[in-house]
């Protein structure tokens, strides 16, 4: 059963609706002891990374997240929270994966936000992308991106520059795109996470 970290950063209707469609059971994590009720954890998040981090700290859940040993999936801003730092709000984040979150503005000639379906290139045999054709399109909406890097990067996307579409370290996994809005391949990714 999947626990969704409920810290008030954006609406979680879409992710719960996707899990429902896939017959994956889930519940909400509102306090540190709630983590014990679930065998997998999703950290959602939309909006401002600095503000989201502040809410996460205020919720009292951030220290417990760092100590988790069960599979964790960060989505969009929930992904960025796992990194060391974001230029959005000049914020220090959880620091679980030693990467930086940077602004597209000023670094690419393309329009910002990066909005729409973009193809990604992922590592072979990555369990998160099992039964998904490489170079599939996923739905992105973001103005900040995680730097491209090979130690923790497991999927790359290009938007004026290469950036991390997905990263992982030990039991922590994260995707910049929205699997809950990415059609069949997004649903397959959620099923894969549930099988980890």
């Amino acid at each position, binding site marked *: 059963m999947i626990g969704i970290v409920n810290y008030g950063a954006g*609406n979680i*209707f*879409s992710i719960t*609706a*996707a899990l*429902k*469609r896939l017959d994956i059971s889930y519940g909400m994590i509102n306090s540190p002891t709630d983590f014990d009720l679930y065998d997998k954890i999703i950290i959602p998040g*939309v*909006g*401002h990374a600095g503000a989201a981090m502040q809410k996460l700290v205020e919720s009292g859940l951030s220290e417990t997240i760092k100590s988790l040993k069960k599979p964790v999936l960060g989505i969009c801003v929930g992904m960025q929270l796992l990194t060391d730092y974001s230029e959005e709000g000049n914020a220090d984040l959880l620091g679980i994966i030693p990467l930086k979150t940077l602004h597209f503005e000023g670094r690419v000639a*393309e*329009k*910002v*936000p*990066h*909005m*729409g*379906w*973009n*193809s990604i290139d992922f590592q072979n045999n990555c369990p998160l992308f099992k039964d998904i054709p490489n170079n599939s*399109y996923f*739905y992105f*909406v*973001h*103005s900040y991106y995680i730097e491209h890097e090979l130690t923790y990067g497991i999927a790359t996307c*290009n*938007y004026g520059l290469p950036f991390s579409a997905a990263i992982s370290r030990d039991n922590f996994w994260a995707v910049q795109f*929205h699997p*809950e*809005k*990415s*059609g*069949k391949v*997004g*649903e397959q990714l959620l099923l894969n996470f549930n099988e980890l």
Partner: protein
Amino acid sequence: MLAKRIIPCLDVKDGRTVKGVNFVDLRDAGDPVELAWQYSQQGADELVFLDITATHERRKTTVDLVKAVASQINIPFTIGGGINELSDADVLLNAGADKISINSAAVRNPQLLDEFAKAFGVQFVVLAVDTRFVDGKNYVHLRGGRDITDIQTEDWIKEAENRGAGEILLTSMDHDGTKNGFDNGLLKKINDTIHIPLIASGGAGNQQHFVDVFQQAQVDAALAASVFHYGEILIPELKETLHVNGIPVRR
């Protein structure tokens, strides 16, 4: 590579999908949730729901519709119509809408764009603009094209971008319903001046019109209604045509 988006637009009235020629003479084309599901299966990249009667009747778009769509559809969608203040948008986003579209409310109160961007982030706000060519200039129109304003379209879009609109949905009232193609000249002119995504609307009649708007105006997305609703253009075939013409699409 970022794909160009194909967006069916579902005009909704009383919970049913309708599409009028030049926004009058409404015809019923089905259940919006069922239609939305069909489009997602066909490969539509995104959906827009507009309650076209909401603005002049001052009715709120139904939250139930948004919830039903968000529960059953696995692609992003925008809801517009009757959104006049922050609380309207808040309710719809919490009901599962990915983006909200505003039109006349922003013309009446441009400050709304700043407020929405601050509250929800720029990516949630689509500014819909209805434009018509009058006496040699492009003017913003309200109430589905019924009322002219004294605001020039190019100026308004630029101001909206500066205030925090995340995306522009530009409908040419001169082209809408004609099926003679998009207003590629105006779209290109606008697209060259903004740094946020532009959705072309109004005039789609055949597949070549989509090729033309992407090649000539370089817009990010193209929206249409009746050609999709009545099966005159099938999305898988349209995507194949775009691909053959070198336009990046999700297939």
